[in-house]
């Protein structure tokens, strides 16, 4: 036990993580608290072996479009590094990035069809700082689907009496749940033949439907996308963190949830 605690402390507590530093310097983050907490967050992600499962992490660490666009995993200013390009009416602040629900979207350049999403593998994580105002609108935080909106991949957070949705393929519609507070961390994980939707670390939906088509479109944050139609169901939920990558096990998803929400708390969200 003592060895385990010591190992954790040595791995996490002290020193600069080079990945975190590269991101913070490239993004131009000068707030010392944010720099400290992002550094700790990265060290913890690596300690718990979650870092390598992610292809993309957007911590929205800054307060402007310029300082909220880079990928923590690869901070190069390139489409191929999945750096965000903001379009339309976003509002950027210390609490995150809020789309206007009318025409705002951010291109991630991350295409699930070419980045390893499959019938046995997928991860999407999004932290909602403030939920959409128009709950009846089935607005999509992100998502892609075919020209008939079948085989969809999406997350739709809403407040009761409206249902929230996790979509990953299938012919029976998305997995649904109800909640009184739509703020928090949503994860869609498929690590095997079951899609698990979780909210704040609790699995709220499971679905065994097969996904037979991974729609080949880049994910946008702030809306869904329908092949051949375009942007669909713009959201106005403020986003504080987002990630795409490999499907996490239940245990890793719980740990990841704790780490993400701890970060949000430490940087004042």
């Amino acid at each position: 036990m003592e060895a385990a605690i010591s190992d954790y402390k040595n791995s996490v507590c002290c020193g600069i993580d080079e990945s975190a530093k590269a991101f913070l310097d490239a993004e131009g983050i000068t707030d010392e608290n944010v720099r400290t907490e992002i550094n700790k967050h990265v060290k913890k992600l690596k300690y718990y072996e979650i870092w390598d499962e992610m292809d993309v992490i957007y911590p929205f660490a800054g307060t402007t479009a310029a300082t909220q666009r880079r990928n923590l995993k690869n901070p190069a200013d390139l489409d191929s590094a999945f750096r965000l390009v903001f379009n339309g009416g976003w509002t950027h602040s210390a609490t995150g990035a809020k789309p206007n629900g009318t025409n705002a979207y951010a291109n991630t350049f991350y295409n699930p069809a070419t980045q390893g999403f499959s019938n046995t593998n997928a991860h999407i994580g999004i932290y909602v700082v403030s939920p959409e105002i128009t709950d009846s609108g089935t607005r999509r935080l992100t998502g892609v689907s075919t020209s008939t909106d079948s085989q969809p991949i999406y997350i739709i957070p809403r407040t009761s009496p409206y249902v929230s949705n996790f979509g990953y393929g299938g012919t029976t519609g998305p997995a649904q749940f109800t909640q009184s507070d739509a703020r928090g961390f949503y994860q869609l994980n498929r690590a095997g033949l079951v899609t698990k939707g979780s909210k704040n670390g609790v699995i709220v939906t499971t679905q065994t439907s097969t996904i037979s088509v991974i729609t080949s479109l880049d994910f946008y944050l702030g809306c869904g996308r329908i092949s051949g139609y375009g942007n669909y169901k713009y959201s106005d939920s403020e986003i504080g963190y987002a990630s795409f990558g490999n499907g996490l096990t239940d245990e890793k998803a719980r740990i990841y949830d704790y780490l993400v929400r701890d970060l949000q708390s430490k940087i004042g969200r």
Partner: protein
Amino acid sequence: MNVAILTVSQKDQLLGQEFAPFSHFNIIQDLNDNWVISEEEVVNCTTFSWVPSLTLTMYEPKIEPNF
């Protein structure tokens, strides 16, 4: 939600351009097929001097299909 209606010439000037650092215009059509940009793009525009002077009006969205 408020938007500003653009002429075709204005739309062509703004297409593909930034309205602020690392923020691109996204010109869409409303219910009446007018070209519009959002209030956020109007108010925060630092790249075209005439944009902040545009008149804002209530947005009438297109009806999205149910697939």
